[in-house]
């Protein structure tokens, strides 16, 4: 059934509408501006002519709008306009249940990953220090190794120097260690929804292996001297301890619900008529009802 109902127009100002009156001042002012500019490439008199036109244009324009903007009344001729469509059939897109990705309904919050990163970072210090004591007989060795990565004269340094204590290298190492642990923790937290059931396996095994693999393959390019001094066995051990501690901390945190139960479009903040359920509560026609009743 086609809707052919049309509204009688009810002009606000009776049968006339105020519109700004046509005026020739804008074109005169514009021509004046152009002439004033053109004078620079032709002759000073053209600029003078342009300036006179500009002045005239400004005065004329002001007289049009001050104190009141001039209007003209345009008579309204009522004409019915039919707004209708021959396409009456509306089809909604159908989405089969298998089109929905299976996302976890519960996961750990990202913040817990950061907490895990901090805890793991603290725990990781111990295997590193033990390595320093056992292999190099100095707890400062791993600290300086990390801190020295950021120091310029690193290439001329001896093992004895690395084993001794340096304030600057200690500070740099703490900064590097702290920032890295926070960032790795953040990354860990962001990856948690991918493997939500086993945070300890993700953090304790998968993470360290990926991280070590990445560093092992790239450290030779990033910092060759550091690469030569890293003992990768000990490196993996401390990484795993970091990961396990971080994983345990995360596992102790409670899970939160994901938006998995909501439709995809809602989670994306997208409104797509047809893909979303209709909401009869919303919508303006509440205020329309009285008008409706008037008619019937």
């Amino acid at each position, binding site marked *: 059934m086609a809707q052919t109902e049309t509204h009688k127009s009810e002009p606000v100002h009776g049968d006339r509408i105020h519109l700004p009156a046509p005026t020739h001042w804008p074109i005169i002012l514009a021509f004046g501006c152009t002439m004033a500019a053109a004078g620079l490439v032709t002759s000073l008199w053209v600029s003078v002519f342009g300036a006179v036109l500009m002045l005239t244009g400004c005065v004329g324009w002001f007289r049009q709008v001050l104190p009141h903007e001039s209007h003209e009344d345009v008579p309204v001729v009522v004409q019915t306009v039919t707004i209708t469509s021959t396409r009456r059939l509306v089809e909604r897109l159908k989405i089969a249940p298998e089109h929905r990705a299976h996302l976890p309904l519960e996961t750990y919050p990202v913040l817990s990953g950061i907490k895990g990163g901090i805890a793991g970072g603290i725990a990781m210090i111990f295997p590193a220090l033990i390595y320093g004591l056992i292999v190099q007989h100095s707890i400062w060795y791993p600290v300086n190794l990390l801190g020295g990565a950021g120091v310029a004269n690193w290439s001329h340094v001896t093992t004895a120097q690395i084993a001794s204590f340096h304030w600057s290298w200690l500070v740099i190492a703490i900064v590097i260690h702290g920032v890295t642990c926070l960032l790795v923790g953040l990354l860990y937290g962001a990856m948690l929804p991918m493997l939500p059931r086993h945070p300890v396996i993700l953090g304790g095994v998968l993470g360290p292996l990926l991280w070590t693999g990445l560093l092992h393959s790239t450290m030779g390019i990033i910092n060759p001297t550091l690469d030569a001094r890293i003992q990768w066995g000990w490196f993996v051990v401390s990484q795993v301890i970091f990961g396990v501690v971080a994983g345990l901390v995360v596992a102790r945190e409670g899970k939160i619900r994901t938006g998995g139960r909501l439709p995809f479009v809602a989670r994306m*903040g997208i*409104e797509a008529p047809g893909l979303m359920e209709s909401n009869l509560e919303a919508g303006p026609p509440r205020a329309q009802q009285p008008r409706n009743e008037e008619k019937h």
Partner: protein
Amino acid sequence: MSAIPVTPVTQEWTLPSRGRVGMLSLIIGECGIFTIFVVAYIYYIGKSLSGPTPQQVLDIPLFNTICLLSSSVTIWLAERQIERGKIKAFAALWALTMGLGIEFIIGTALEWHKLIYLDGLTVRTNLFGTTFYALVGLHATHVVIGLIGLGLILLFTLTGHVSEQHTERIQVFALYWHFVDAVWVVVFTVVYIVGR
């Protein structure tokens, strides 16, 4: 379900004033012009091949600056007077604003006169001259345009054509004047503090 609150039809439909929106847009555009001139000035600080340098010839125009900045306060007070319909107080404050603006222009003219005839600094002299006159001149041009506007409104006020209902137009114009003052803070900082 929706991220947009549905506007109830019964609520009044209010929109921002077109004058204000237009003036703010113009100000944003003007900021683009000033940014380029300021960047050019900063880029060319100390790159002049010959003298005179800013250290040798520039004096800090403190009195001028105080005058221009206080004109922003007086125009704000004037806006408040017209809001309340006190036309005479408005006219007085408006004239004061204009006087402060004129003082600024006279100050700049005197400064330029000294620079040109005493120190021999012109646009051609060196990069400092080029960038200085361009940037300060651009600002002075805006002050002059503002003064013309101020003068016209003062004229209309004195001939009794301005009343309370023109508040909005006057406030829109005042926005421009505030902008001119604000830009001076930037120009002043760059030219007389950073550049010296």
